[in-house]
């Protein structure tokens, strides 16, 4: 599903941040991505959905080389990958509900059925009461939940979440994890970047999750000794 081959990346301003990365996220797999702050988790994720292009090596998503895609191609790729960004960007002039439905509206899939899914999803992330609010009026945790809801509304084949539980309490983080696990059980490929080891432990009781760790510019599969 997502395949990296000898990928290296460095920002134009700095030294190599990631190098020599070769790995495969198989369809239906559940991966965590962990590592110290600044290690390059967000960068790795951006490589996976075409926001950044590898300095060298190849990134293949759905068997397409990301390098070969033009902007429209990247746009179409993003419709099949639900991304929950760490900095949760929204359109501040639209309500929370409209923001969550944005991927549907921009792709013309705003059907009655999708509306019902939206209502259910808003309930799941606990935002039913805040549906009409504007994004700047939300708390940090509410923003993250809204971002997660927006990431999964299209029922994408791949879900990539960058710190989806960074600002929420334990109970809510368990709830969000349940959502991701449910989606994984429906066959979606899931990648979650997080610092939160207890979240990973909790997940391991529910699903076969593997852990990728970024250390020394490499991404390695971590052992079972978390």
């Amino acid at each position, binding site marked *: 599903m997502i395949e990296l081959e000898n990928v290296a990346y460095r920002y134009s301003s700095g030294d190599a941040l990631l190098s020599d990365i070769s790995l495969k996220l198989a369809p239906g797999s559940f991966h965590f991505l962990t590592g110290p702050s600044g290690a390059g988790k967000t960068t790795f994720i951006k490589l996976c959905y075409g926001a950044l292009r590898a300095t060298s090596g190849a990134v293949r998503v759905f068997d397409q080389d990301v390098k070969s895609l033009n902007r429209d191609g990247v746009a179409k790729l993003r419709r099949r990958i639900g991304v929950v960004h760490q900095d949760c*960007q929204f359109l501040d002039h639209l309500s929370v509900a409209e923001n969550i439905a944005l991927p549907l509206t921009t792709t013309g899939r705003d059907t009655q059925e999708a509306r019902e899914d939206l209502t259910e999803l808003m309930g799941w992330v606990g935002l039913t009461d805040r549906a009409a609010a504007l994004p700047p009026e939300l708390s940090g945790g509410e923003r993250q939940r809204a971002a997660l809801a927006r990431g999964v509304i299209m029922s994408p084949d791949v879900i990539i979440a960058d710190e989806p539980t960074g600002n929420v309490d334990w109970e809510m983080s368990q709830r969000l994890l349940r959502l991701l696990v449910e989606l994984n059980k429906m066959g979606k490929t899931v990648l979650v970047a997080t610092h939160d080891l207890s979240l990973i432990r909790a997940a391991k009781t529910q699903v076969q999750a593997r852990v990728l760790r970024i250390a020394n510019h490499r991404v390695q599969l971590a052992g079972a000794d978390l």
Partner: protein
Amino acid sequence: MRLFADLKALIVRDRRTDGIVPSSGFTAHLVILSAAAMAFLAVFALALSLASGRLAVRWGDELAQSATIRIVAPVEQRAAQTETTLRILETTTGVAFARALDSSEQQALLEPWFGSGLDLEKLPVPQLIEIIQEDNGFDAAGLRLRLAAEVPGATLDDHSQWRAPLVQSANRLKALGVVSVFLLAVTLAAMVTLAANASLAANVQVIRVLRLVGATDGLIARAFVRRFTVRAFAGAALGMVFGMISVLLLPSASEASGFLTGLGFQGLEWALPLLIPLFAATVAFFATGWSARRVMGDLA
């Protein structure tokens, strides 16, 4: 195909693009206002151009049809020379009609300058002969030669000398009108481009978010293009209506229409200003599309 889809998106409200860009009241009003002002001016430029075109044709035609012979001779020879001239004219091909103005007509012509009560018989005033030409006209050079031989005091004036600059300036005026319309279009394009650029720059964050959720550049561009096209159309329509009302209210062309009273539209020409809003919309469509592509290219 692409263009067709784009055009359809302009007319049919598209739920996908309508709300995604925040509305910006101020630039919106500016675009409407400037489109209205340009359209208003364009109506006048158009009227000017059409009126001077008509004038050029009329002056050209009317004056080309007539000519004058002036006979300057001692009072006692005047009648004889007039006779001879009329005889020559009768045998000249291309002359449809020729007649000597009688003294009361000549008096009427001179009255504005010399007042009434002139006794023309006693004054060395030239005798005038009016000639109406046939469609193909006559051979002015040939006629001049014959007159020179037989009537020493006769001068042929086929009006071409003073007609040419008049017709030329009318044609210049017409061209000026066309150039004005063109300049107005360019100015509108510049205005819309500036406004669209400002709007795109103010919405960089919006564009980023839209891209994150998988919106294509085309879709994002359409959201802006539709907005500016509709605004330019609405503004231009408004300005055009006011312009046409103003032209209607101008003093109507009287029989002896001078230039200024002839400024207006005639018959089918009234349909021409209706094209102004369409034209403005087209200009806005391409100007916004161009800036949107440029800004989004820079953002990538």
